[in-house]
């Protein structure tokens, strides 16, 4: 019986990662129909980690359901399981991509950067571009 707990936990974790990678470009609203609401289950990793799904709320823009991951009393993740396919809602849930900081030189027309002083400009890439084209 004890062995069953990690198995169940891993399946839940697996399911969550499927949801996480659900494409955001789908034309229809996303729906998750399996989970009874609200429900709680412990997940693998930390003994105190707990994933809780909220009830599905019907708003004027469509159904909304959130899932919150707790580590003890601390919230470690919040995810929208259901959200209306509406621009306003989409804008509120930005999709961020992580990447490594790279250093490159390339042929460009202009350079954006923190506000440069007139003194520092002389040494800047933008000054070189301005001089090149003059």
């Amino acid at each position, binding site marked *: 019986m004890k062995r069953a707990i990690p198995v169940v936990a891993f399946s839940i974790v697996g399911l969550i990662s499927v949801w996480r990678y659900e494409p955001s470009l789908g034309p229809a609203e996303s729906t998750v129909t399996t989970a009874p609401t609200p429900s709680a289950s412990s997940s693998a990793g930390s003994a105190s980690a707990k994933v809780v799904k909220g009830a599905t709320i019907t708003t004027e823009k469509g159904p909304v359901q959130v899932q919150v991951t707790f580590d003890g009393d601390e919230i470690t993740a919040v995810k929208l399981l259901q959200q209306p396919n509406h621009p306003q809602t989409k804008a509120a849930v930005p999709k961020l991509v992580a990447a*490594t900081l790279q250093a490159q*030189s390339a042929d460009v027309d202009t350079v*954006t950067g923190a506000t440069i*002083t007139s003194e520092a400009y002389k040494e800047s890439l*933008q000054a070189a571009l301005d001089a090149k084209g003059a």
Partner: protein
Amino acid sequence: MRRVEHVMGFPVSLRLDDQDVPTAAVDVVFDWLHEVDERFSPFKPGSEVSRHGRGELARHELSAELVEVLDLCEHYREATGGAFDVRLPGRGFDPCAVVKGWSVQRGAQLLRASGARRFCLNAGGDVVVSGGPWRAGVRHPEHADQLCTVLELTDAAVATSARYERGDHIIDGRTGRPATALLSVTVVAATLTEADSVATAAFAMGAAGIEWAASQAGCEVFAVDAGGQVLRTAGFPVAGEEPEQSAAVA
């Protein structure tokens, strides 16, 4: 044609590719920016901004332009929970963070009104382009002679906030201390008014500012945190990449 002038303490570079637009149209842009410097500089004791800051001009006595700037400042103060604040205790009224983007955007609109179609206006690192494609490099936060990414823009604005040029000049209004959680934040938007304000406000907010900026309608974001990790929106228009449909432009 190209022209570089120093206004408000930073260089303004204009490249205009339309041969049929008269030089007078370019003069109008730089005249406007010099006028903004006179009227909105907190460093000139006689400016409208300084007089308002000292309480000599009440709101109903202000120009329509300064009222517009004040409304923008208030909008971003509320939207950031006070992280972005142009009235910091002991520092006086300083709306420079909004004035810059707003005034350069208006300069670009003056150019368009004169018939300019293809131009690139760079005001100390904040850029408005028209009639692209234009390739805009984002300065690497740690190496002044390197880029960390390159954008391809058609008609858009891009602004970057960081500490590497002017040090800890962006204060988190909630704590009164310099914002140091990010190395740089770059925002692409339809106007420089939005791009510059959102980039500065996000920088003031710190790490949470990245998601906040990404959630602003029409904004694409490229941020580098203090650990050198890049976080960007899927729709950030990196040159040579097919841009994903982004949440922010949906």
